[in-house]
């Protein structure tokens, strides 16, 4: 049974679920950012699989943009993590409750 579009989509959904669970379960800012990367890559896989099924390269081109956005997000996110860590000496997101009403 050669892998079809459905196989790739199931894999993509699984990875997205894992990433979502990581965002909500982990108490470490860096791990949360890594979970976001997992989710982005799950979406990338779906894009490429759809592009392959439809027979054009637009899916692959979108992935380039997603990778660019991921790079920007990683840079800004990690800069925020560094600034927060310098401020509070902690990476636990529960330590940052200044905006709690």
């Amino acid at each position, binding site marked *: *049974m*050669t*892998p079809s579009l459905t*196989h*790739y989509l199931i*894999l993509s959904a*699984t*990875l997205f679920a*894992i*990433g979502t*669970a*990581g965002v909500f*379960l*982990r*108490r*470490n800012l*860096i*791990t949360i950012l*890594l*979970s976001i*990367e*997992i989710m982005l*890559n799950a979406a*990338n*896989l779906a894009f*490429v*699989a759809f*592009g*392959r099924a439809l*027979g*054009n*390269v*637009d899916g*692959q*081109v979108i*992935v*380039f*943009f997603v*990778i*660019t*956005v*991921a*790079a*920007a*997000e*990683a*840079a*800004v996110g*990690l*800069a*925020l*993590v*560094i*600034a927060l*860590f*310098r401020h509070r*000496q*902690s*990476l*636990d997101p529960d330590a940052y409750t200044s905006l709690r009403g």
Partner: protein
Amino acid sequence: MAGDTVLFYAFAAIMVLASLLVVGQRSPIYSVLLLIVSFAALAGLYVLLDAPFLAVVQIIIYAGAIMVLFLFVVMLLNAPYETATGLKTGGPTGVGGAGGPTATDSVGAPGFSPGAPGPTGPDRTGPVGPPGFSPGARGPTGPDRTDSVGPPGFSPGAPGPTGPDRTGPVGPPGFSPGAPGPTATDSVGPPGFSPGAPGPTGPDRTGPVGPPGFSPGARGPRWAGAALALVLLVELAWSLWRAGAQETEALTGQLVPGTDLTSVRQIGHVLFADYGFAFEVTSVLILVAMVGAVVLAKREI
């Protein structure tokens, strides 16, 4: 193609497993390394989807550049890792995991007389422990040190009957590690990683097992990184080979014209013709993100 089916399931299994471990991992440095494994598997899936150029981009840019940025930050912040109670900043977490849930440090209560080796004679020369921690005495049958040095969840193997030489620096950082013993079985593994049961000659656990990656001799992440680099290199070569093979097929007319998704030329055409504006906007986004990251991470503006 049967080979592709097998490869698909292999890559999918690696990817799901690595992603699960990323989420279930306590030490961030192994999380990042496992995420690189996951991305390597994803690049393999791209190759199977006839997108070898994207696979190369995934390896070089994503696994190579973005993940190295993550690694850099993890090392810069000295890798705080999560415990059951909260985050532990990477500090003197050498012996006993410093509050790790599985720490069963049953050696040498303070005041316990050091030395007194048993008849089988283990040499415990290394300062193992935080300051003020006197090394424990040996029973006559050799040690049963079960202190779990390393990340929580790490269970060191039971020492062999003839007694291991614990010469290793498992103390707080700042302690310079001695020369590793000749049979150093450096077992700095990720949590859940249990080194094999040592043989009857007794292992020398000389690996500094503090917070992963930061003790001078923590070779676990180093070897993992080296192996990972090798895997990525092989995969790059494989994807380029696949791309070349498909290009050849397209040139010799074995592929229906217009359906070859592999050609970089076609991707470039679509990228710069149809998505030209989005490309420009993305470049501005990258520029803004770069300036923003510099401003945010700067100590004083």
